[in-house]
């Protein structure tokens, strides 16, 4: 941003910590900022509160942008885990765009991240959101990988699919955390072990195939939805046995799996079990150190 733009931008907005607002207000600001978003994902207050808690969003480091009348015009949130930061929920209300508000919010978040000793920032942007993608590139973020968000409607696996010949052993509740802590790092922020453990309502089971192959999966199981999948295997037969067994056991729930890498070799297995791609995101990163 040039000095002139900075001055013009500062004359239009100020930024205040998001912690000055309650979750009802934050949800309302967010929903208004995303009303015309490419994939609208509105939130109510409980959902916003859960999001902040699950993903270690620091509301003191997150910002709400205000206009000259002190009315909220947009927001951006910053999650912090050790030396890593994550930018999320960025949005500017349609009526207030065109004043570099998005860049103003992003630069404030970057500054907040540096002040909190973050060495690396990451974020995701939905493919097709070109203005945001260009802004992130301008600020120095580089694409890391593509991520898929996939869905499967409720129901047992297609009867035409063979039932796996596998021994299924449920995991005990006390086994969930140690299993999750043993996973290979590299998950997207909202699927990292901290987020999954914060989300709670976790179940898991292991399968053993006659071939000797085996693996386990852990997932969140709520009244309506299965989510937050962790599969321990890269073997297609084992993944098939895990997913088939899961949907045989939980036919009533809808399924939403977020941010699996687009090059995940198990994607064809998911498709075979009835998953479809909803949309893709690009994960981007910016070293700060």
């Amino acid at each position: 941003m040039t000095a002139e733009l900075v001055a013009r931008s500062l004359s239009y907005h100020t930024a205040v910590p998001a912690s000055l607002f309650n979750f009802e207000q934050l949800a309302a600001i967010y929903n208004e900022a995303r009303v015309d978003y490419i994939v609208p994902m509105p939130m109510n207050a409980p959902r916003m509160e859960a999001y902040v808690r699950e993903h270690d969003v620091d509301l003191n480091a997150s910002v709400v942008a205000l206009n000259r009348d002190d009315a909220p015009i947009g927001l951006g949130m910053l999650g912090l885990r050790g030396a890593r930061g994550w930018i999320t929920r960025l949005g500017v209300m349609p009526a207030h765009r065109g004043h570099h508000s998005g860049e103003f919010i992003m630069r404030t978040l970057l500054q907040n991240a540096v002040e909190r000793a973050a060495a690396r920032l990451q974020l995701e942007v939905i493919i097709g959101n070109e203005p945001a993608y260009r802004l992130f590139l301008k600020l120095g973020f580089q694409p890391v990988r593509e991520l898929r968000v996939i869905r499967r409607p409720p129901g047992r696996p297609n009867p035409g699919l063979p039932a796996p010949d596998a021994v299924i052993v449920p995991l005990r509740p006390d086994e969930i955390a140690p299993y999750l802590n043993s996973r290979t790092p590299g998950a997207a922020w909202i699927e990292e072990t901290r987020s999954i453990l914060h989300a709670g309502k976790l179940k898991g089971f292991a399968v053993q195939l006659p071939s000797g192959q085996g693996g386990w999966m852990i997932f969140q199981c709520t009244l309506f939805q299965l989510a937050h999948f962790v599969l321990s295997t890269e073997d297609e037969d084992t993944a098939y046995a895990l997913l088939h067994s899961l949907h045989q056991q939980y036919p009533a729930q809808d399924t939403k799996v977020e941010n699996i890498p687009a090059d995940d070799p198990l994607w064809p297995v998911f498709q075979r079990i009835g998953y479809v791609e909803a949309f893709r995101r690009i994960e981007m990163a910016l070293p700060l150190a």
Partner: protein
Amino acid sequence: MSVIVVIEDNRDNARLVAKLLRPAGHQVLLAEDGETGLMTVFENRPDLVLVDLGLPDIDGQTVVGMIRQQPGLERTPLVACTAWPEETALDMAHAYGCDGVITKPIDTRAFVARINDYLRHSGPRA
């Protein structure tokens, strides 16, 4: 007269839909989140459900999935209403067993005719 449940969190959109459907002789029941929408559908057994795919509590696909599983509602026309790109919306709607998709912003001139079309072409109710 048909009973239509509209599950839509955006009040302006919900009001617009009701304003279009009521003069056409339909009874419109509005619900502004997924949970209220599910209860309204289960209690009223409507002739058609119009569901926004982006809802603030339970998302729209999950709502559709729950309705489709409810005995007696397997064949109730379900129409997704969404601002998603049309191709994505069609894929999602098809996967979840919706009967159709109406993209936002709503084409007010064609909207009632399209809803009447979905009502006419729905199969016999279970």
